[in-house]
């Protein structure tokens, strides 16, 4: 069933279509939600609400973007509401367990675990707006104009947010992770 047929089936309230939608996008949305909010339980709730809202409003879907993009836009709005209600993001303990790889005799794997842990720590300290652009750019691999459309802001604002988000992460990450230090547009600006 292609996307067009899937949407038609959803509009026809076909339960099989809902199942297919959940199968095809559920886990991916959950991972994105987890990257945005940092809490698995909250991410599960957000994804559940995303699907319910999508099913309710499927008749308004015009097919101008991919189904996943449409679902992700709903998810992003819900994530913002969750953040607004809670005022601040609270990451649960399971994140620390999840993000660090289990001990391995391979030193390279341990380094990856440390880097990963530092990355999540830095990500959780970003503002919601900065975290959004980081996740959309580097996790969802969206282009600048796609992020701008997705967030309803200008391309210039997207670039500006990316620039400052990377700068923030540069301050938050340890020096060993020099992927965020002294590079990008900042280095060009200095010259």
């Amino acid at each position, binding site marked *: 069933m292609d996307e067009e047929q899937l949407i038609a089936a959803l509009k026809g*309230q076909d*339960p099989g279509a*809902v*199942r297919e939608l*959940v199968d095809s996008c*559920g*886990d991916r949305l*959950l*991972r994105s939600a*987890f*990257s945005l909010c940092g809490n*698995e339980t909250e*991410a*599960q*709730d957000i*994804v*559940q609400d995303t*699907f*319910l809202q999508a*099913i*309710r409003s499927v*008749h308004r879907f015009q097919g101008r973007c991919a189904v996943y993009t449409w679902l992700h836009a709903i998810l992003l709005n819900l994530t913002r509401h969750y953040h607004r209600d809670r005022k601040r993001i609270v990451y649960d303990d399971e994140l620390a367990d*999840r*993000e660090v790889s289990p001990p391995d005799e391979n030193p390279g794997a341990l380094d*990856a675990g440390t*880097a*990963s842990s530092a*990355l*999540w720590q830095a990500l959780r300290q970003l503002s919601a707006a900065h975290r959004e652009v*980081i*996740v959309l*750019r*580097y*996790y969802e*691999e969206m*282009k*600048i*104009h796609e992020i701008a459309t997705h967030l309803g802001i200008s391309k210039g604002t997207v*670039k500006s947010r*990316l620039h400052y988000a*990377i700068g923030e992460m540069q301050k938050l990450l340890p020096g060993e992770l020099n*992927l*965020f230090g002294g*590079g*990008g*547009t900042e*280095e*060009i*600006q200095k*010259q």
Partner: protein
Amino acid sequence: MNCRRFQNRFYEYVEGSLSDDTQAAANEHLARCSACRQAVAQEQQRAQFLFDRLRQDTETLALRPEVRRRILTSPKCKSVPRASLESIIGLWNRFARSATIAVSLLLFAAFLLISHLSGTRIRETIHETETAPGDDRNLQPAISIQISYRVPTFKFRREGNLVVDTLSYETVVASGTLRPGGQEPVPQEQATKTPL
């Protein structure tokens, strides 16, 4: 293209969404600018690192069975009368503005009509009751006034060793007509006694 212009197109260059001409100019600039080359290389490394880490750290996450079940069995998903809901929302979206304007106009017209009719009736009543032929001053309305008030009165009398008191009220009613033409109201008083 100089560094500043390249910087403005930095992300588009890395993602490969520049037009052919701009892409060629950017490549030309990168060929002779090591700082921009380094920045591009670093951005590509950064993107790869973030993508790998975020993907690897979340790849074990899966939708919980109970969440999945709730989505598939939710009444919101199954029993929403979509057609009727859509029709109500659609009708509202379609006619809300015009309906609001029409109701406002109707209310305004009704208000004007009522004001006009009531004004005419008042004027007609005044004209019928107060107008005396040949007396222009009486065209203005006369106002009837009636005032009443109660005056308490205590009376004491002695009966043997006891003192008996009696409270009675006297109601005084005064009425008259106030004429704007300058005539004083004609008072007509009458009093009635009401023992308690």
